[in-house]
């Protein structure tokens, strides 16, 4: 019995040390595969999640950054957030609600937020490009930020182009595309 408990403790330690937790994402995204073996850094990542129908969500890995970005966005759109709303925003792993609805959204409970988040998305069109504002403010808050696009393999290129053009307008010319590793390594 002692041997078994030793083994379990060892395994437990291993998993605890190596684990990075799966982030809760509002939409399931199947990334395309590539042979690239560059690992994505774990910190200072602004992840842009693009869903096949074109909805955009974002996530930042540092909670203080999220708070600061939200404050800046609120300033730009003339919305003041209560500390309670800010706290709720900080603990959510992914955000993606138009600013007009942000305040109402943050008043909801966490379960209700989860339920409706996947029907929302950050607007990213020429008339109302909130996506650009988010990226700009995130960059201002954390200059070391790296942008990573995680898009579904079936997303039409026009949507990706829209995202890329928005980034290009902001002079964000280096970004990462998150891909899965191709299992059969040929070439």
């Amino acid at each position: 019995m002692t041997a078994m408990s030793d083994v379990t403790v060892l395994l437990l330690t291993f998993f605890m040390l190596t684990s990075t937790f799966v982030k809760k994402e509002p939409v399931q995204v199947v990334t395309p595969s590539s042979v690239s073996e560059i690992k994505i850094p774990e910190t200072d990542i602004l992840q842009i999640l693009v869903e096949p129908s074109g909805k955009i969500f974002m996530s930042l890995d540092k909670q203080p950054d999220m708070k600061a970005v939200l404050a800046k966005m609120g300033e730009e759109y003339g919305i003041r957030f209560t500390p309670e709303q800010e706290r709720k925003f900080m603990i959510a792993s992914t955000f993606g609600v138009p600013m007009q609805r942000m305040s109402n959204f943050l008043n909801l409970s966490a379960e209700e937020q989860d339920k409706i988040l996947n029907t929302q998305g950050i607007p990213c069109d020429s008339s109302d490009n909130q996506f650009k504002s988010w990226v700009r403010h995130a960059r201002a808050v954390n200059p070391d930020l790296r942008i990573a696009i995680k898009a579904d393999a079936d997303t039409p290129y026009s949507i990706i182009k829209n995202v890329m053009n928005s980034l290009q307008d902001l002079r964000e010319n280096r970004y990462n595309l998150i891909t899965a590793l191709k299992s059969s390594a040929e070439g």
Partner: protein
Amino acid sequence: MSAEVQEGGRKGKGTKQKKMAVRVDFTPMVDMNMLLITFFMLCTTLIKPQTMELSMPTNDKDITDDQKSKVKASQAITLLLGDDDKLFYYEGEPNYQDYTSLKETSYEPEGLRKLLLARNAQAVRQVNELKQQKTDLKISEEEYTKQVADIKSGKNTPTVIIKALDESSYENLVSALDEMLICQIGKYVITDVAEGDRFLLKNYETKGGLTKEIAMQ
């Protein structure tokens, strides 16, 4: 760990130790450990091997235009990513009169990769040699990266212009970029589809129908 004192220990010669047996039941602890391990395994391993990255430098719009004009037509390959995973390419300047100047290929290894490898054979060979040297520990990691970058931006390497149509999917773009990586192509650019390219595609689909129409007028 084990809290068990066996009877009949003969170490203490003179002193008489009190003999007692204490047994601790480990089963609940093991149960709990197993539970925690299961929890950690389910929470981590699913995503760990899949977060790989393809870093893609893109240039400013004006710089891209500069570079494009510098590219020799003979070294340029233009890829047109169409819908339904179709892939077309033309080398150098397109010939709008001749629809056969646009060729169809595929994302399969014997399609695009074969084409690019043939065009970039020299660079690929050099990189492979370097890789061999690196595995033999003849050159350092930094030197390897530096030399590979040199080879990739060498004079005779082809330049690939990737033009993705709105109908193509993100996966197509990534597979195209992937081929650049495999074929050691250092100079590639993603640009918008021009009107001329749409014409070429239409012309290809109708097997020269558009050119005939224009000739008729």
